[in-house]
C-alpha cells in the first residue's frame, strides 16, 4: 500500500461550522462557561442563538429603543450572549416572535402591525450586545407556523427591511441575513424557491440569504444525492438549486445554512437514520459546503437530543447526555472525496483549536488500530486532503495526536 500525503488545501474557504441549541445553552448542565468550553473542544466555530422578542418584551416598553427599559426581561438571554462573548465564541443572533401588544393580541407567529415596532426592538438588542456582527431575521417565515400572513412582502416590509436599516445604522461591519426559509412550504406556506423570488420582488435588503436545507426523505437522501428534480423544495441534496436562485435574485450575496441535521433512530423511528450513518453524513456534508460557492456557514441543529419524541434528535449527545458517534464525527469529519482505480482521496478537518494541526492515518488490522504513513499537517483552518493507495480493503480513521481522538472509521475499497 502506498500512502501519499497531499499538501494542505490550496485555498481556505470561508465556511464556518457551528451549532444551535438554545435550550441546552440556557438550561444545560454546568455553567455557561463550561458549556461553551465543551463547544470549543468539539471544534465549534460559531453559535446561532435565538432571541424571542415576545418573551423578552411581554409588556410594551415605554422607550422601546432603550434596552434598559423596565419592560424588557433579559434574564435568560444575557448569560448566554455574554457567556459566548466571554469565551470568544462567534455568535449569530436570530430575532423572532411578535409580542401580543405589537400584533393586535395574536400569537407570536403573526407579524407586527407596525414597521417601527420590530425595528425599535432590534435597536435595543443591538445596543445591548454591540459586539454581535452577524444577525438573521426571523425563523422559517415561509411556513405558517412561523409567520402569518405568510407572504414575502409582509416579511420584507415589516421585519427584514426595517431590521436591516436599523442594524446598518447602529452596528459597524454588520452582516444581516434574510430569507431564513424552511426546506418546504408545508401546509399553507410558500416554497423556498417562490420565497426567494418573492423577496426579490418585494425589494428585500440583505447581505446573505439564509436557508435550512434539512433532508425531507432522510432515509433516501444523502447530502449529495436524492434530490427531487421537479420540486420547489430545497434540501442539501438540492444545494445547487439554492445557489442558482440566490445568484439569479441576489447577485453578489452570500449563503448561510443556519439549520441542518439528520435525526437518529433510535429514538426517532420515523425520520431517524442509524447513528453510524448520521456520523458519516457529518463528513459528507462538511465537504459539500466546503466545495460549494457562496456558503459561509453551516449550523448543526441541536447539541443534545430533545427528550420529547416529537422534538429533534439530531444532536451529538442523546437526551440523557451520552455521546453519539456524531460527537467524534463533528470534531474530526472525514469523507471520501474521490476514487480512481485503487486510489482513494480522503478529505477532512481537525476542528478543535486554531492554526495548522497534526494528524495521521490509522488502519484497523488484526483487532487493533495501527498507524500507517507519516504525520500530516493541515492548513490553518484544519483542513487536509490525503491520497491512499489500496492493495486490499481497508478500514481507516484519522487520528489527532494532540486531541488524542480519532474520527469515525471509514471502509475503503
Amino acid at each position, binding site marked *: 500500500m502506498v500512502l501519499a500525503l497531499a499538501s494542505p488545501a490550496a485555498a481556505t474557504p470561508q465556511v464556518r461550522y457551528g451549532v444551535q441549541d438554545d435550550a441546552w445553552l440556557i438550561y444545560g448542565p454546568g455553567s455557561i462557561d463550561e458549556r461553551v468550553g465543551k463547544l470549543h473542544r468539539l471544534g465549534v466555530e460559531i453559535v446561532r442563538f435565538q432571541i424571542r422578542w415576545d418573551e423578552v418584551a411581554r409588556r410594551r416598553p415605554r422607550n422601546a429603543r432603550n434596552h434598559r427599559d423596565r419592560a424588557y426581561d433579559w434574564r435568560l438571554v444575557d448569560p448566554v450572549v455574554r457567556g459566548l462573548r466571554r469565551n470568544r465564541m462567534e455568535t449569530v443572533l436570530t430575532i423572532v416572535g411578535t409580542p401580543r401588544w405589537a400584533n393586535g393580541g395574536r400569537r407570536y407567529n403573526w407579524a407586527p402591525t407596525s414597521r417601527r415596532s420590530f425595528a425599535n426592538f432590534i435597536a435595543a438588542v443591538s445596543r445591548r450586545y454591540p459586539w454581535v456582527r452577524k444577525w438573521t431575521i426571523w425563523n422559517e417565515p415561509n*411556513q405558517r*407556523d412561523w409567520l402569518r400572513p405568510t407572504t414575502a412582502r409582509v416579511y420584507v416590509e415589516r421585519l427584514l427591511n426595517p431590521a436591516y436599516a436599523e442594524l446598518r445604522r447602529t452596528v459597524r461591519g454588520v452582516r444581516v441575513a434574510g430569507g431564513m426559509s*424552511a*426546506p*418546504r412550504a*408545508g*401546509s399553507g406556506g410558500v416554497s423556498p424557491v417562490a420565497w426567494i423570488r418573492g423577496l426579490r420582488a418585494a425589494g428585500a435588503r440583505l447581505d446573505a440569504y439564509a436557508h435550512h436545507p*434539512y433532508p*425531507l*426523505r*432522510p*432515509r*433516501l437522501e444523502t447530502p449529495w444525492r436524492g434530490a427531487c428534480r421537479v420540486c420547489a423544495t430545497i434540501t442539501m441534496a438540492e444545494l445547487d438549486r439554492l445557489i442558482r436562485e440566490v445568484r439569479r435574485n441576489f447577485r453578489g450575496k452570500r449563503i448561510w445554512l443556519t439549520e441542518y441535521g439528520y*435525526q437518529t433512530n433510535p429514538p*426517532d*423511528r*420515523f*425520520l431517524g437514520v442509524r447513528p453510524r450513518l448520521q456520523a458519516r453524513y457529518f463528513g459528507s456534508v462538511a465537504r459539500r459546503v466546503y466545495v460549494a460557492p457562496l456558503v459561509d456557514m453551516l449550523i448543526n441543529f441541536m447539541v443534545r437530543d430533545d427528550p420529547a*419524541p*416529537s*422534538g*429533534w434528535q439530531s444532536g451529538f449527545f442523546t437526551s440523557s447526555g451520552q455521546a453519539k458517534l456524531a460527537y467524534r464525527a463533528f470534531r474530526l469529519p472525514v469523507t471520501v472525496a474521490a476514487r480512481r482505480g485503487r486510489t482513494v482521496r480522503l478529505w477532512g478537518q481537525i476542528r478543535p483549536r486554531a492554526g495548522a494541526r497534526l494528524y495521521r492515518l490509522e488502519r484497523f488490522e488484526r483487532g487493533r488500530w495501527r498507524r500507517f504513513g507519516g504525520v500530516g499537517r493541515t492548513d490553518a483552518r484544519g483542513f487536509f486532503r490525503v491520497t491512499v493507495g489500496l492493495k486490499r480493503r481497508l478500514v481507516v480513521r484519522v487520528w489527532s495526536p494532540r486531541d488524542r481522538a480519532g474520527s469515525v472509521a471509514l471502509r475503503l475499497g
Partner: protein
Amino acid sequence: MTKPVVTMALCSILGLLVATSAPAAGRPCADAVITDWTDGRVDGRYRPACYAEAIDALPEDVRAYSTAVDDISRALRERIRETRGPDSTAGEPASSDDPLLAAAEATPSDALPAALVWSALVAGLLVLAGIALAAIQLLRRTRVTHRHTGPVGQW
C-alpha cells in the same frame, strides 16, 4: 383462598388479558402506514381510513420537515382509485373528490372493528365460564361438607 375464588379470579384475569390485548381501534393501522412510509414511499395497501388517521397521528417534526403528508395523501388517492375501479368517479358529486372525505365516507362511524368485537366476546365468555366453574365447585363443596358434619350430638 378457596378453590372457587381462585378459579374465578384466574378466569377473570385471563378474560382481561384477552380484552386488553385486542388492538386499539385504528392505532396500529395508522402506525403501520407511517412505518411503511419511513423509506419515503407507502408500498402496502391499507383501508382508506388508515391513511387519514396516519396523517393525523404524524409527530410534529415529521409533519413540518418531511414529505410524509404529501406522500401519504398521494398513497391514499391511489388506494381510493384502486378500490373504486377505473370508471367509478364518473358522475360523482365534487365533494367526494376530496380523498380525506372519501376515506371518512368509506368507514362506518358506529361500527367497532371486528377484532375488538371478537376479543370482547371471548373475554366475556371466559368470565362467564369462570363464574360457572366456581359455582359448580362451591355446590360440590357444600354437599361434601353437609355429608361429613352429620346430625348434631353424635360426638
